[in-house]
């Protein structure tokens, strides 16, 4: 490739990156603005961060968001992993049917998921609030976990199961000593994806949250509709920093995933 062309392509990439990061930088910069609006930088201040720290309602909502994310990701991972394992041993045809159903929630628009869950909870008689939000987050995280775990299972050598059974392992021992250690990277990745989907979700939660209970995304939506308040900027800066930490964690897991596993994990 000629030198001039290379520079032009670099320029394009840099431009894309600038646009991608502009809003985030913008939010961060103005979170330190003493002016109180997102126009004209008057001076440096940390008062908006202090404001966030004093806003008990907001802190409770942040806590809610994390509780929902961790709980739903953990439960979804357990159901999803066992679902994927049993799915893996099914006949090809039933597996294909179940997998298609599995993917329905992944490709469905959030609005449909939210609206249909709202109907479901109303019919079953589950009060809208913590339970309904938690159940929905578990529900839309399970297929993601399954999709993350299945490829790891497919990688496994079938003779590993036979060897374990020949050596007298019970079904549970085959799972706990052979399968689970092998697919561990997939499980971590699934848990992590479930966590981020839950933290990131707005639309589904918005439908099933009812009055009085709120997660961060829903709260930001209602505050943003009322206009600009720089405490949202401060909050989003904090969230962004947290996100970076999560990304680094995810990157680390992915790197471990890519390392080829030879046979049974030795410990």
């Amino acid at each position, binding site marked *: 490739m000629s030198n001039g062309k290379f520079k032009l*392509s670099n320029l394009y*990439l840099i431009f894309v*990156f600038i*646009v*991608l990061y502009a809003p*985030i930088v*913008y*939010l961060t910069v103005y979170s330190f603005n003493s002016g109180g*609006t*997102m*126009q004209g930088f008057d001076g440096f201040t940390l008062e908006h961060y202090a404001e966030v720290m004093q806003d008990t309602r907001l802190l409770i909502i942040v806590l809610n968001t994390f509780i929902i994310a961790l709980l739903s990701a953990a439960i979804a991972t357990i*159901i*999803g992993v*066992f*679902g994927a394992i*049993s*799915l893996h*041993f099914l006949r*090809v045809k039933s*597996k*294909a049917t179940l*997998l*298609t*159903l599995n*993917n*329905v*929630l992944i*490709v*469905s*628009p*959030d*609005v*449909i998921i939210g*609206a*249909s869950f*709202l*109907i*479901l909870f109303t*019919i079953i008689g589950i009060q809208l609030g913590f339970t309904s939000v938690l159940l929905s987050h578990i*529900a839309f995280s*399970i297929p993601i976990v*399954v999709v993350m775990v*299945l490829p790891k299972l497919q990688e496994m050598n079938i003779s590993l199961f036979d060897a374990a059974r020949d050596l007298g392992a019970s*079904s*549970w021992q085959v*799972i706990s000593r052979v399968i689970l250690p092998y697919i561990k990277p997939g499980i971590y990745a699934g848990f992590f994806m479930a966590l*981020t989907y839950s933290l990131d979700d*707005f639309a589904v939660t*918005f*439908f099933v949250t009812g009055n009085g209970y709120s997660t961060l*995304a829903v709260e930001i*939506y209602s505050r*943003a*509709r009322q206009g*600009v308040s720089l405490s949202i900027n401060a909050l989003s800066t904090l*969230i*962004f920093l947290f*996100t970076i930490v*999560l*990304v680094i964690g995810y990157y680390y897991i992915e790197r471990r995933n890519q390392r080829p596993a030879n046979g049974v994990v030795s410990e």
Partner: protein
Amino acid sequence: MEARTRTIYLIPYLVWMVLFVVAPIVLIVYYSFFNVEGQFTFANYEKFFTATYMKMTLSSFWYALLITFFSLAVAYPTAYLLTKTKHKALWLLLIIVPSWVNLLLKAYAFIGIFGTYGVVNALFEAIGIGNRQILFTDFSFVFVSVYIFIPFMILPIYNAIEKLNPSLIYAARDLGASSWVTFRKVIFPLTLDGVKAGCIAVFIPSLSLFMLTRLIAGNRVITLGTAIEQHFLVTEDWGMGATIAVFLIIIMALVMVLMGLRKRGLDLVKR
């Protein structure tokens, strides 16, 4: 594994599937046959085929097409150039990071950037274009949507280009193809799967966006998603909301069949 233990492990997963995949779809279809008073009726479907709703559906489609088109136009060169960089994994990660920031925060940032006294208008003043209304226009809606969806378009295309065997490109060049012909006849056709996956990942969600239409487009744009949200949470006419949802599901299924994603799903199983 024994059939019996296998069944035990499968049960929670199947319960989930019946309760949260099958039941919701059935319920949506069921509710679409009832009006606000709870009587069985086909009126919702008749209403959907009136001019108002047809116009809304078409405009929703139009915006989704625009968003998909511009996402593709920006994403393909980006993905292609990314594969040529030295630290590919790092650059790719940097593309993904913004997608991990909550969508609402990004939308909120754009309210500031595109606002009457925001950065863009300040820039316009400086170069002499003058103050313009940017927020609450079609432009801002499409721009912000493209911004939000672009990582989902870049990723599958990037993966497809990465999978491409480079010797095919060398062969094309050896046989005298110009770089444009190589792109058109070799690279693009072979990365079409990635393009399709990206288009699905962008097109379907853009039909159902509703928070952006409120925050960025100031209710000027009404997508199918906005209509569903309106019917479920504002007017509480669940029947009509469900009817629109039924059509959205049908559209989604059609798009996926057309794009041949189902076939690939089966491949995943057989492998």
